[in-house]
């Protein structure tokens, strides 16, 4: 059965990518919310925020990229949920194919769709004055962290996609994820926040991820924050993957 895993996954990924390219609006909506936030923060609030040196757009881009991913994966949950409802999921499962390929196809599609949205957002940020002296290595490191974060959130998205009862239930989980960057170092330095809020901001996953990406773009040495960021991403990925696997098996038995 596993002999066809890669071929089957490729065919199924091709299929769900058609879903993405045929509803281009999902890519645009995924990119438009973070772009609107970026405009708001840079041109409205940005002047009043004391963030240190450099352009504010460069300061807040890492946080915006994470918001882009959080809004992108709600479509992953939506697409998976629609498949479950439509019965096509059962058709695939009743066929002699590698079953896990059905989920992996959604995960890979999520990754590709998010990378497209991220590219658009970075492009707009460049137009708005984002500049970085980061070399190829630093860019690859940023891409690696974003891919890891996308995979972690995508596997979270798989859980409501498999278990939700309604469409809105399937995608609603993304909102808290989208707001997590607001209570982090993404838009303002955490040291102006009151005690408990600051504690939360310093100890939630977004802050070390944002700081690491910011350091990579700003050509600062990345500190221990990198390992905290990677630990969060891998930790979330593993837990979400296991829970998704359990929900999946429960769903098909």
């Amino acid at each position, binding site marked *: *059965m596993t002999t066809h895993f890669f071929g*089957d996954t490729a065919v199924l990924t091709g*299929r769900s990518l058609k879903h993405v390219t045929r509803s281009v609006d999902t890519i645009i909506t995924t990119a438009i919310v973070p772009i609107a936030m970026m405009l708001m923060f840079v041109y409205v609030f940005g002047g009043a925020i004391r963030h240190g040196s450099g352009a504010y757009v460069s300061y807040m881009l890492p946080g915006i990229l994470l918001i882009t991913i959080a809004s992108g994966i709600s479509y992953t949950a939506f697409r998976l949920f629609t498949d479950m409802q*439509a019965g*096509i999921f*059962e058709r695939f499962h*009743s*066929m*002699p194919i590698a079953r896990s390929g059905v989920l992996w196809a959604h995960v890979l599609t999520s990754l590709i769709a998010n990378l497209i949205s991220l590219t658009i957002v970075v492009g707009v940020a460049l137009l708005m004055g984002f500049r970085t002296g980061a070399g190829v290595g630093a860019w690859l490191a940023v891409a690696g962290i974003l891919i890891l974060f996308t995979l972690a959130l995508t596997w979270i998205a798989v859980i409501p996609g498999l278990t939700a009862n309604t469409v809105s239930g399937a995608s609603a989980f993304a909102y808290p994820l989208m707001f997590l960057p607001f209570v982090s170092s993404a838009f303002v330095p955490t040291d102006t926040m009151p005690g408990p809020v600051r504690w939360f901001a310093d100890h939630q996953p977004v802050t070390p991820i944002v700081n690491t990406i910011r350091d990579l773009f700003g050509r600062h040495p990345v500190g221990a924050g990198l390992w905290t960021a990677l630990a969060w991403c891998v930790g979330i990925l593993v837990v979400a993957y296991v829970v998704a696997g359990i929900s999946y098996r429960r769903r*098909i038995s």
Partner: protein
Amino acid sequence: MQGLEKSYKELRVLRGVDFDVERGGIFALLGSNGAGKTTVVRILSTLLKADAGTVTVNGFDVARQPAKVRESFNLTGQFTAVDEILTGRENLVLVARLRHLKDPGAVADTLLRRFALTDAATRRVSTYSGGMRRRLDIAMSLIGDPPVIFLDEPTTGLDPQARVEVWRTVKKLAEDGTTVLLTTQYLNEAEELADRIAILHEGRIIVDGTLDELRRLLPPAEVEYVEKQPTLEDVFFAVIGENGKHDEHGAAGESGEDR
């Protein structure tokens, strides 16, 4: 299929289902809503695991050789399983690819012609009518020529014309040597199509035979009184006792009986 049992929590849906389907021909599994027909089909098609009993499809055990079983059948589920965003042709090509066939495009074109969908081939399925969707759905289930086909309520929600179309397809399949297992709640459908009929009621097969054999179950007095052959509908309600409404209560009430 021997001694098949399946419960959802407290509700014992199947409580020892036995039947055999011979190769070739059409076998109809008849029952009211909630009788467990779909559960039987889902277990046969490896989508659901049985609690007890042995089930073999095309000689392969469902629990132990699920991969072999999946190579032996195709399923047309109760709800059309087509991809709305793809075109009709893309749907067929997709399934042909997943079945690892040599020329997916040619397979798709042949089926489009056979199901009179060539004109609509490049349109998205979301623009199709209910009948066209069902035709595409069944066409997708024929790809790879499996020896067995499961059809779970294939005509539910179709207009009479589309229903007759589906019937014609099913008959053609059986003539070509495919074994068809069909579930339905439409008695005339079973009457029209099936070589053998089994009635599933309260988790058990209560009658199993040809239409003539089922007819003979009714007392001849009934025949004299009505002055016509009893329809399958008469037989159905007579053998299940009443109108089948106490289904769920009956199932829950007896659940402790033979544990």
